[in-house]
């Protein structure tokens, strides 16, 4: 279990996140939503051990995160960052391979290949990363994260997957397949924390939804309780948008009502 207890991060006098307590439970897909600047990425940085909170504590199974070596943390969780650009032409396989190396794989090349096919990039192994499209690059990075935690549970210790806007720059089909892969990871006993902007996707995939606003948790729990008109209106300033069908002349596409 990964626990953040009353964490606060301030930068130049402003509290980016304020007194947040959150638990990532094995088997759970936790989704963080909230408007721009709500503190979602900061919360993820604190939970992944990348940023030290000014007050409060983050612990991985009882061990404070600042006592963990980077190499130990790397075996317990992987992070998918937002768009990354590279100055050097690594191939897709070489990028994914770095994740497998961080995990300590005996045959990192093979693990990387598996991870690439899990994100639908079989056949893209030798493509130079800088020449790929934004969406393909995002999936290569997702493959790198998967190669770093190829199994959700190792020796009874669940691994965690942190995804910072994993669906940004992906088409609808790949948005679903990335989130389904993440959900499979959670179903297998791992922990998943994802930042999403699409409330429909959040509502479909989240076991536990956290709504951030101005650095504070304004609602958390199952989607049925957290995605309602009051909260969406107070956080996003859009009233009456939950659960109503748009005017008859506007077609709408809801991925959560797709055929399965």
């Amino acid at each position, binding site marked *: 279990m990964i626990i953040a207890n009353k964490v606060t991060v301030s930068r130049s006098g402003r509290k980016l996140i304020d007194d947040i307590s959150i638990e990532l439970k094995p088997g759970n897909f936790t989704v963080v939503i909230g408007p721009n600047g709500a503190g979602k990425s900061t919360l993820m940085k604190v939970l992944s051990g*990348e940023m030290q909170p000014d007050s409060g504590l983050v612990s991985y199974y009882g061990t404070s995160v600042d006592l963990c070596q980077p190499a130990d943390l790397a075996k317990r969780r992987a992070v998918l960052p937002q768009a990354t650009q590279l100055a050097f032409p690594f191939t897709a396989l070489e990028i994914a391979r770095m994740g497998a190396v961080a995990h300590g794989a005996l045959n990192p090349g093979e693990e990387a290949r598996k991870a690439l096919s899990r994100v639908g990039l079989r056949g893209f192994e030798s493509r130079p990363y800088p020449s790929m499209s934004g969406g393909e690059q995002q999936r290569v990075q997702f493959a790198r994260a998967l190669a770093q935690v190829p199994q959700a549970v190792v020796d009874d210790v669940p691994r965690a997957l942190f995804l910072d806007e994993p669906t940004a720059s992906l088409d609808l089909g790949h948005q679903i397949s990335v989130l389904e892969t993440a959900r499979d990871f959670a179903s297998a006993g791992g922990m998943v924390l994802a930042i999403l902007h699409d409330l429909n996707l959040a509502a479909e995939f989240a076991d536990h939804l956290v709504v951030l606003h101005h650095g504070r948790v304004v609602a958390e729990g199952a989607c049925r309780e957290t995605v309602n008109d009051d909260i969406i209106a107070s956080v996003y300033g859009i009233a009456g948008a939950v659960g109503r069908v748009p005017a008859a002349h506007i077609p709408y596409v809801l991925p959560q009502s797709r055929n399965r």
Partner: protein
Amino acid sequence: MPFRRTGEGDRTSQGVLVLFLLAVLLVFSCLLSLHVGPTGVGLRDLFSYLTGNGDSLTTQERVILEAVRLPRTALGLLIGAGLAVSGAMMQGLFRNPLADPGIVGVTSGAGLAAVCAIVLGGGVLAPVAVVLGNQFLPLMAFFGGLLVTWALYAIATRDGRTSTTALILCGIAIGALAGAFMGLLIVMADDRQLRDITFWSLGSLGGATYGRVLSILPFIVFVMGIIPFVAKGLDALILGDAAAFHMGIPVQRLKKIVIVAVAAACGSTVAVAGSIGFVGIVVPHLLRLAMGPSHRFLLPGSALGGGALLLIADSVARTVAAPAELPIGVITALFGAPVFLFLLIGKNGIGARDLP
């Protein structure tokens, strides 16, 4: 592509093959460097000398080989390897293929410190010079290089990203500053020191002695020794500080080690041979084309390739205008500067990324 058989996208076997070819090239260039010169030493004589029976050599040839050629070849090997590896490491650290110790001012800083050592070694710094003995000049240059590398990193890097423009402008500013201080020191220097400075600033492997080889050996051995420990980290660092940390790399410690290594390689080579430009940019660039950007192969490849390149350049410098000797810096700049220009205007250079 003959290398594809081990699997698409995996350039491991390609890297091993290129390393092997570079090792062969290095052996060839060592022999070339021992062989050519105003007094040629026949290849057959050379081989029998190297395999342990030098009876066929005349006394004169033996003296030339042992007192002139061998130390010069050893020095060229160490300097070439040090320059190329420091270039490759710096490019990884700054995530920028244009970062070269010569271009961004590290060489100037090391040079200024070396001139300080030459001019002030008999005066203000005399006690230090006595204590450090043979290592005084290389150590001074090392600290000069360290100061500049650290300052560059502090100035030109914002949020873990280094802009090409900031890097190169910083290099110009540091070069100008170092030039100004060097001018001051030259005014203070006496005739003998002036000769030392002039000889040194041309950049040459002439005057190679076993003493010089031994004085830079510890620095180069240190830099080569850390290659296996930093290669994985530098690869991860290309994806950004945060991603490298996520993959278990102790980022701050890695950066400190690499900064010290760049300064050690660059400072010590500048101290014994002056500023020899462009080796640190040409060799890693060509190797990235041949084997990909992974530092697992790029760093050892740069060591082999840099040594070979410098030995070949030195052999050309010694023979092309014989009996006169061209400064080796001229040769390396002749093919290095065009590569640099190509990188600068290329799709990953200034022209594409930094202009608004």
